[in-house]
């Protein structure tokens, strides 16, 4: 398959890369750019582990073609924290024990990031609904919901 040269804007940087027409955004991030914080859990858009933000909106990078991801600002988990300091959502995940195996964590945090950007004080039901496309098998979601709730309070304070 013939490769095509594209430019991706990821975490504020512009990258030039040659991708195949069937390369997904997930392939581009993980295999081309080495941004392996974005995880592949199912590759068919069901588990949410590959969630990244495109212009602030969560997208499933396993279902998005790399060719279609040009011209938007992509944020991956590597772009969430500011230098050494963790984002308040990341910090809340750490403090509240919301991380176990950690495989769903990057996608979960990015989904939460979008939620808290658009909704200052979501209810527990709204938090659960918003992360219901991000599958977690370890935590029973309890501490994840608690962490997002705590981060929203922190943000509102």
């Amino acid at each position, binding site marked *: 398959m013939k490769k095509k040269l594209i430019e991706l804007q990821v975490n504020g940087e512009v990258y030039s890369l040659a991708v195949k027409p069937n390369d997904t955004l997930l392939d581009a991030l993980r295999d081309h750019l080495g941004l392996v914080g974005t995880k592949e859990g199912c590759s068919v858009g069901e588990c949410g*582990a590959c969630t990244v933000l495109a212009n602030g909106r969560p997208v499933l990078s396993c279902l998005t073609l790399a060719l279609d991801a040009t011209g938007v600002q992509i944020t991956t988990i590597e772009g969430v924290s500011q230098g050494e300091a963790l984002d308040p959502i990341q910090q809340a995940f750490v403090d509240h024990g919301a991380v176990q195996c950690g495989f769903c964590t990057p996608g979960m945090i990015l989904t939460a990031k979008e939620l808290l950007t658009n909704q200052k004080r979501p209810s527990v039901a709204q938090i659960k609904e918003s992360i219901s496309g991000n599958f977690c098998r370890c935590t029973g979601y309890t501490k994840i919901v608690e962490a997002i709730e705590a981060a929203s309070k922190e943000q509102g304070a």
Partner: protein
Amino acid sequence: MVQKECWKCNIRKRLRFDTHEQLPYHPLRAERKVISLMNEYHVIGKRLPRIDAKEKVRGQAHYTDDLKLPGMLCGMILRSPFAHAGILKIDASRALKVPGVKAVITGDDTIKAKYGVISRSPKFVDEYALAVDRVRFIGEEVAAVAAADPDAALEALDLIQVDYEELPAVFDPDEALKPGAPQIHDHAPGNMSREFHLKQGDVEKGFLESDLVREDTFTTQSAIHAYLEPHAALAEWDMSGRLTLHTSTQTPYYVQQHLALTLGINPDRVRVIKPYVGGGFGGKSDGMAALDFCAALLARKTGKPVKLVYSRDEEFTAARRKHPVTITMKTGVKKDGTLVARQCKAFLDGGAYCSLGPLTTVLVGTFQTLPYRIPNYQYDGYRIYTNKPPCGAMRGHGGPQAHFAQDVQLDMIAEELGIDPVQMALRNGLRTGERSAAGFNIISSGFAECVRKVAEDTKLKEKKSYRKSDRGKVYGIGLGCGGFPSGAGFYFTNTTSAHSSVIIRAGEGGGVSVLTGASDIGQGSDSIICQIVAEVLGLGLEDIRITSADTAMTPPDMGTYSSRVTVAAGNAALKAAHAAREEIFRVVAKKMEANPEDLVAADRRIFVKGSPEALMSFEDAVNLYQTENEGAPLVVKGSYNSPDKMSPTYSFGAYVAEVEVDLRTGEVQVQRITAGHDCGQPLNPMSVEGQVEGCMVMGMGYALSENLSFEGGQTLNPSFLGYRAPAANQSPEIVVHHIVGHDPEGPFGAKETGEGSLDPVTPAIANAIYNAVGVRIKDLPITPEKILREMKKKAKGHEKETD
């Protein structure tokens, strides 16, 4: 020197975490405070964030699939499309012509050595790493390819020509037992994979002495772990013929053994490294997976590193899963609910190979002897081969199936006798000092406290008679109970290694390295081991670096299964930490002209009891140790073997589920689950809660929705959505009560949490559904269809009665 060190220290600045900040002492302040500190844990029992959480939230934790080596090839596996067939011929010539394809391997490229995780009996060693002459389930590994990229590998898989001769297949255990059924293995006439019988007391006599005897049959579905990280392996050989394999596993030492066996090399030539693992729940506890072997052999054949990652489809169609079990349970009780006798027969649908199934066959029978006292007990378990993917261990390992049957039946019995299930649980619950019917020695039991706590907290008795209904939805509440071993007391293989060993090393700079073969797969054992070491050495979590697990560096360990890590590896860590402290105290005592018994380690310092002005920093103490020992670093070790061949100790739990059932749709919403869990002393309550909460939602999925459907041995729903594991918007409110105790065997009094927490959930939900709508579903999962069908049947029966 001591004085100077103290003047230099800036306590406020150096106290880095909460627990220490709460401690109101300074070495120069009153002696009384230093002494009171000795009686208090600094790190143990605190809600500390896990040591790996920061890396994980930043996306910096590397799992096997995140690793890349120069020149690395991509591997893929060709799987059988037939449930049972002979392999006549495999022709890979066309596949090898695909540009980028470097190698194809089949059974003929192997030494044709069988392996099996339970290698104590040759009967259980029944599997080839790649099929030889015959395949026994759809999805069985037939060949594997290594190519420069995934496209070439996929194309090559299509071009491998396999000539099969289809054989009659059998999918149902009942059918497989019939005379004339297709025979799956030559070594197992009648398709009997394992039989296990257990007898304690006299059940017949027990039934005669009983006031009520009930017999019920329960069936459970095919469930699967659905860990989020698919299996992955990356293999590389060096010039001296040594293999390094990074793999997503719970049991690196079994992987090492199995690889050595199937590759025909000495185990010391195999180095298995476990990077971060994205969950396992028993699905990565079998030792070697086919992809480990294929990565290794392909890498050897091509001379290049090879990585293989299972697709989610492969995980659902071919990986290990939980046994579906048919359980016939006959239980006799006295009028007051006292259990007198139990006879249980279980038929396990084993799938095509043994995996851990021979043990599951035992555990269905033994685990149901917790948490209750059953004076007369008989169990007959049978595991039957079928042409389906092999079943092995899944969280709870035989417990969830048996406990669903047990606690639903006891709820029925309580109702029939008109007694409170809570009173019945309390009457029959095993107490400290007792021995279960299967021979489990209970050295600490907080079961009664668990039951009382949840019954009281949920107002169980009162709410049971609610029959509250709101807009077509009915409320129900139910109790489920359980108990679970804190680790197996034996290896699956013959070995001279201890169950767990830990090495601690400290050198210049005072940093402490902990080496353990115990595998953190997300449950948090690395953090717990660090907490134990930190507590003993008076250090903070951030002072400790842990390596787990790398068979070339870390000492052997059974691995992460049977809920064993906290007690076994924790005790090994405790022993090693005590040994390190002893060495340090010895040199410090000499220097300070004090008695080693009078020293205390806390806040990165060594103090003399009674004269708090005499102190030395941990770093100086380590340097002093080196000076006194010709510059050699401090290296100590600790090992642990379960003193009881069954298990060192047992956890207990009682859970109450509250549900709402929609009368029109049959849909069940679990509103709240309240747990009382006795894991002795929770070493990190936040981590314990995480295990309990995870179990609750997994148990809820098992109760209500999760199910792999088959037709002709073909998995019909190989996807997350098809399998229907719970999403966040289905998760209930969860309340966890720690029933804190002090187990005499566990490190700092701790017991297990990771698996036992699953057992009570499913029966609690099943009993709550009955409480809501009055129908008993004895066949998991309890789907809306089954509820509506039973409700209709009940209504019809009722109509007939009133006619």
